[in-house]
């Protein structure tokens, strides 16, 4: 039997990016906030200092910073004709764990989505007609506009000190920036990062092709920065250990480097670590959350009553908690009814490997978000008429590291081992390069999340089951993007070029990206969305669900910028409206 704790105003489940942002905003507004995090507390100085952070084996290969599947995993199948099996070791994506969440080990690629991404179904229907979209494609509008989110994107970027070069300030196109981006009120807080050799060559080839290269927006600092909370970040040293790693140099924007030093000084903020929330509790009407139940490191069960519950865990775990708590109607893909688990989407990545005779790229001189990219083939920035697909992605040369266990390329035909392999690795390490595309992922009726009937976690609670496969729309898009990327790379003069478009079926084995989206999406209609435009549950108005869980489908960008903007957007609505008059912010 759970023991009840004294009630608090707000309980937050998960202390990553969104939990930290909401905790800071609401403690600042006078609320008593308790954050429950199932992982450990993590500090830069003690958990990933520069003395041992640069360890490919420990962090990348052995997944030291991530959730352990032994604690919680999920099962996977492509479709209902298969039997789902548990993901026993992580592969395609890496669920985060611990204070700071994915904000600790991300690359820092900090994007805004395109204005048309937020009204995707309306926009595509207007431009191409409803017949252009497959029947089982369930993309929909977000019910929030780019213009409404712009001030919140701005807040997140200025929190992080994002380094970049604006392409559109108040409607005026800026030289050298991304001309396709939505208008921003002002430029990035810090200048773009310095570019290594390969991105510089790629930009020249892209320009020559008539495209519009620009520096990748980066959460790694091009110079020292003090954010509006007074927290300081140091300049990035381009050490090449960003994604999968914590930054020991205070150079990568994370909750640790931007918010927690201030948040932890609030007397009305409490964080409890190694406390795993097992349920969101509701009253007898099922329309009001009364708090959460959690299990601490000793296995003791506690109940934390609260006036408001903010679900801020990683995307899939938000969905699982909703299902396990019986909140909202589970999605039924056959009847196409219900909302919890609906519209799961991902990210469609691909690449081009190129081998050069006369280049030395120093791939280890790198950072998580240093690169030159083009957005000419993202979203609906290009005419899709006759192409047979919708969506797109950015592409280019991003130099994230030359770590040798996984970062060595050999030309096609090279054996996987032996003397010839060894020689090819030695010859090609400095002169080969992987270029990439980062494509969108539409939502479909069959791609959804539910509870697995067989497999459970150590507390004997059902695991989440992922039902997901790549659809012809995404495969055609990936082939198209990869071909365009290949044409540009060819202009750089490689002796050999190998294209790797994404192919089906979807596999959970090779790493692709941790950009999992949807499952409790935002929207205008409670029949097709779990959350209203302020990320408030339609069913339980004192419950808000943060993160990419709310994305109705994923755009051709990394999600964190939009996750941060949505967190500030929701925080703003909670502070300015909900706290004054608790209840639905949008009539159902």
């Amino acid at each position, binding site marked *: 039997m759970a023991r009840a704790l004294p009630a608090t105003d707000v309980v937050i489940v998960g202390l990553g990016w969104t939990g930290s942002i909401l905790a800071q905003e609401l403690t600042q507004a006078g609320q008593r906030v308790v954050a429950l995090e199932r992982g450990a507390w993590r500090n830069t100085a003690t958990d990933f200092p*520069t*003395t*041992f952070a*640069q*360890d*490919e*084996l420990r962090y990348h*290969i*052995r*997944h030291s910073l991530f959730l*352990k*599947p*032994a604690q919680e*995993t999920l099962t*996977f199948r*492509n479709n209902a004709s*298969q*039997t*789902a*099996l*548990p*993901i*026993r*070791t992580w*592969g395609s994506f890496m669920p985060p764990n611990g204070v700071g969440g994915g904000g600790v080990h991300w690359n820092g690629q900090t994007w805004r989505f395109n204005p048309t991404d937020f009204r995707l179904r309306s926009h595509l229907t207007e431009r191409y007609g409803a017949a252009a979209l497959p029947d089982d494609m369930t993309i929909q509008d977000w019910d929030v506009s780019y213009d409404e989110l712009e001030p919140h994107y701005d807040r997140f970027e200025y929190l992080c000190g994002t380094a970049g070069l604006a392409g559109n300030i108040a409607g005026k196109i800026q030289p050298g920036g991304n001309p396709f981006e939505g208008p921003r009120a002002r430029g990035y807080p810090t200048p773009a990062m*310095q*570019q*290594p*050799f390969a991105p510089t060559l790629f930009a020249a080839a892209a320009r020559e092709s008539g495209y519009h290269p620009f520096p990748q927006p980066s959460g790694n600092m091009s110079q020292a920065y003090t954010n509006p909370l007074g927290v300081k970040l140091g*300049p990035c*040293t*381009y*050490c090449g250990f960003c994604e999968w790693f914590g930054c020991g140099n205070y150079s990568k924007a994370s909750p640790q480097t931007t918010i927690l030093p201030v948040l932890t000084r609030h007397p009305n903020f409490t964080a409890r670590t190694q406390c795993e929330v097992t349920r969101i509790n509701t009253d007898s009407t099922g329309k009001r959350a009364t708090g959460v139940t959690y299990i601490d490191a000793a296995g003791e069960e506690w109940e934390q009553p609260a006036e408001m519950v903010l679900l801020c865990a990683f995307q899939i775990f938000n969905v699982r908690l909703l299902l396990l708590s019986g909140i909202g109607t589970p999605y039924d893909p056959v009847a196409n009814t219900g909302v919890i688990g609906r519209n799961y989407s991902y990210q469609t990545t691909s690449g081009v490997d190129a081998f050069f005779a006369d*280049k*030395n790229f*120093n791939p*280890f*001189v790198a950072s998580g978000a240093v690169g030159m990219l083009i957005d000419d083939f993202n979203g609906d920035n290009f005419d899709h008429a006759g192409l047979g697909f919708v969506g797109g992605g950015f592409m280019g040369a991003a130099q994230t590291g*030359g*770590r*040798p*266990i996984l970062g*060595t390329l050999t030309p096609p035909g090279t054996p*996987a*081992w*032996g*003397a010839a*392999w*060894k*020689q090819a*690795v*030695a010859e090609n*390490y*400095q002169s080969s390069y992987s270029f990439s595309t980062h494509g969108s992922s539409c939502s479909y009726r069959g791609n959804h999340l539910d509870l697995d009937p*067989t*497999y*459970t976690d150590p507390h004997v609670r059902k695991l989440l089951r992922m039902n997901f496969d790549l659809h012809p729309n995404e495969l055609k898009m990936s082939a198209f993007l990869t071909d365009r990327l290949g044409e540009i790379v060819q202009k750089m003069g490689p002796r050999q070029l190998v294209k790797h478009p994404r192919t089906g079926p979807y*596999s*959970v*084995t090779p790493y692709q990206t941790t950009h999992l989206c949807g499952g409790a999406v935002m929207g205008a209609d409670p029949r097709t969305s779990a959350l209203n435009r302020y990320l408030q549950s339609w069913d339980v108005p004192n419950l808000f669900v943060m993160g990419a869980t709310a994305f109705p489908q994923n755009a051709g960008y990394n999600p964190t910028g939009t996750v941060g903007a949505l967190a500030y957007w929701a925080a703003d609505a909670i502070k300015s409206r909900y706290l004054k008059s608790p209840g639905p912010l949008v009539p159902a």
Partner: protein
Amino acid sequence: MQVVAGGWMFFTPEEAALVEVLVDRLIPPDPATPGGKEAGVAVFIDRQLAGPYGSATALYMRPPFADGLPNQGPQSPLTPASRCRQALAALDRHTSDAFAGRIFRQIPETEQIAVIQRMESGSLMLNGSNGRAFFEMLLQHTKEGFFADPIYGGNRGMAAWRMIGFPGAHYDYRDWVGRHNERYPKPPVGLSGSAT
């Protein structure tokens, strides 16, 4: 100074001798760079299998176990340590049967290479199952040991990093971002700080 690991933590002496031959076939020595054995790859694998990785403490190991589809990921009920131990024994049994009582390390190098190639292609059965799974695990462990920081026992003298020109745990490349198409000249440095 050289730090030498003392004794095997997981492997029996027989297993260790077999693994030292295997890693030298996968990464053979050449005049410029040592092979897997001299680089300490077998020591690396031994330490990994003796530790939490070998016993799968982080992995989801709850039943039921089923083979599933390749794109559903590994589903073995065995830990990496058990899988390795069983496969090594099966490999010696196989060569003993096929080469008149000689275990793997006693057959000629060309035959050893041919056996590894048959594991790679999936045509060699070990313990009644396809040898490719063991081959993939062994090759992955071998490359990890060759390229990981020397604190784990492999990549002795940072030989693998020297081979490709990776500077290791170097802290600050700010002066080098703008030096395009120029080879970085400094020797590698490991987490322990040694640049020798």
